[in-house]
């Protein structure tokens, strides 16, 4: 199986969809020179300036333009250089992209892909390191996906571009340069389906994006302590593949949810609330959540390291779900 870096897998997906569908057009700041990380490098030479368009630094207008173009027949792919800058386009995302189909009673559809790059790495500070996916999963009408591997990065991006709804595709700069196997061909990976990346019987660890690798690291370490950990990669935060999660929770009866975003009000809260509501009485321990502390993202490498949860944090949570006496609920 050939190997690709995530950043190259993403470019490969963009190239194959640009070639396949004339309605696809890329919009973003500096994308003709490849953007800050090189995801779109060279595409303008192959597909021309009409389909790979540099935009001014006007996130609100560019997002609105992309929504309008999608609603009238095109399939735009907008790049928002840093996830922090979706704040400038929130009105267009929340009030238009997510609602046009519904408000017009189905007359309009918005086949739009929004590529964002989020997460803390390399000390970019509070304005360039946030993970804001909880907001977006809270908005009905938006789909949110977050790949952890080059194969899923390509497959999910292809699926997102072919999807008839607005899809936010979350990349992570710490994953851009990791290599991984990718299958031949350019088949989409279905949106809305989680993947069990490590079978286990004792505790289920649910995660996505960069945290999947860190969860696997914790799992191998815990295996030496005789704890068989199942690791699930959500891949899609909205819609959420709740059946896979409930099924695993019922099997292991212990669950930890880990994500890099702030724990407070994060996607983990929704997952914990759903699992405990639907598998109440079938758990031997409360669902524990591992997320960033409730503080803005600090700059200093020492503080940033503490801000992002690591394998020890996950392993600690897993151990405490096992240690806790399985309190049988009274009554």
């Amino acid at each position, binding site marked *: 199986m050939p190997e690709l870096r995530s950043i190259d897998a993403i470019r490969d997906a963009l190239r194959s969809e640009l070639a396949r569908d004339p309605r696809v057009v890329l919009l973003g700041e500096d994308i003709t020179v490849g953007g800050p990380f090189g995801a779109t490098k060279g595409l303008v030479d192959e597909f021309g300036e009409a389909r790979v368009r540099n935009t001014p630094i006007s996130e609100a*207008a560019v997002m609105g333009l992309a929504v309008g173009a999608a609603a009238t027949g095109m399939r735009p792919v907008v790049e928002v250089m840093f996830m922090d800058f979706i704040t400038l386009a929130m009105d267009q995302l929340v009030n238009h992209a997510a609602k046009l189909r519904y408000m017009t*009673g189905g007359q309009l559809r918005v086949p739009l892909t929004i590529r964002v790059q989020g997460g803390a790495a390399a000390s970019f500070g509070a304005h360039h390191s946030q993970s804001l996916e909880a907001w977006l999963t809270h908005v*009905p009408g938006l789909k949110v996906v977050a790949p952890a591997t080059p194969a899923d990065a390509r497959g999910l991006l292809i699926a997102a571009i072919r999807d008839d709804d607005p899809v936010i595709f979350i990349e992570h700069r710490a994953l851009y340069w990791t290599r991984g196997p990718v299958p031949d061909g350019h088949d989409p990976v279905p949106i809305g389906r989680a993947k069990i990346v490590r079978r286990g019987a004792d505790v289920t660890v649910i995660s996505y994006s960069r945290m999947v690798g860190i969860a696997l690291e914790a799992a191998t370490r815990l295996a030496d302590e005789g704890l068989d950990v199942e690791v699930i990669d959500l891949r899609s935060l909205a819609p959420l593949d709740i059946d896979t999660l409930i099924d695993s929770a019922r099997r292991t009866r212990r669950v930890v949810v880990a994500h890099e975003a702030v724990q407070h009000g994060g996607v983990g809260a929704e997952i914990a609330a759903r699992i405990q509501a639907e598998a109440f009485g079938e758990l031997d321990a409360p669902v524990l959540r591992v997320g960033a502390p409730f503080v803005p993202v600090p700059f200093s490498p020492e503080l940033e390291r503490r801000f992002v949860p690591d394998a020890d944090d996950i392993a600690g949570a897993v151990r405490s779900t096992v240690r806790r006496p399985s309190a049988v609920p009274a009554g």
Partner: protein
Amino acid sequence: MWLIRAFEEKVSEMYARGAVRGLIHLGIGQEAVAVGACFALEPDDLVVGGHRSHGHALARGADPERLLAEIAGRASGYCGGKGGSMHIAATDVGFITATGVVGGNVALALGASLTAMSRGGGQVAAVFFGDGAAQTGVFHECLNLASLWRLPLVFVCENNGYAEFTPLSAHTVVAELSAHARTYAMPTRAVDGNDVLAVRDGVRAAAALAREGAGPSFVECITYRLRGHYEGDPAKYRELAELAEWKEKDPVRRYEAVLAERGALGGEDRARIERRARDRVETAASAALAAPFPGPADLMTDVLSRPAGA
């Protein structure tokens, strides 16, 4: 123009009766802009409205019954009762959508014009917005982007001197809104927004430029709306004298006078046209109010392309 005037007065009456609810914005007094502009556009051109867009939809040929049904929240409404007055869409007649966010609609129209341009068939887009939108940042971003990419788009600005409740002068030092367009090297033209022929000519010239690939242009229509900012507002924030002066500039009466002068409109023709408009609106209203509300089953549809997942 009579159809729009009759329609808006019917909505106002239905609102007063409590037959319809929600936030409703009427464009009585601004019929000339809707009719004049839409008259100058082609059927397959793409039009985007604002939050005061009943007139724009009707001028594009939307069915008054399905429009009233939408305002009344009925299942037979254009949007199945889910959108309401501020979010009318009638894509079958090229009225892409309206939106309740001041200024937000202008960006959508940019997208429509990008689609039109990429199709290359000489299609153009047009967007209606008020002077309130001209204060928003996204509006200025749109002027820059449209001019930079030479998008085939006509900006139709209805300057009626008020943003929501406050006179324009309290919101900006820039009285003439087309000045903003000139900042971005965009051709502009000001027309009397109460003269339907002047609006038609202005928009037609602008659309012609766009069709030739010469990029966007800005048509500023100086108008005056006779009803309050939103239905239920007694419009007392205006001096009565100012109100009386503009009543005499009512676009419908002025156009009738022009036609009468040219001998194209006799006395009873005028009454017949008005009556036919009011009758058509009457039947539309009763049909709309008789239509059923949407049921819970309709609720979960149209959220995503497939039924809403977990």
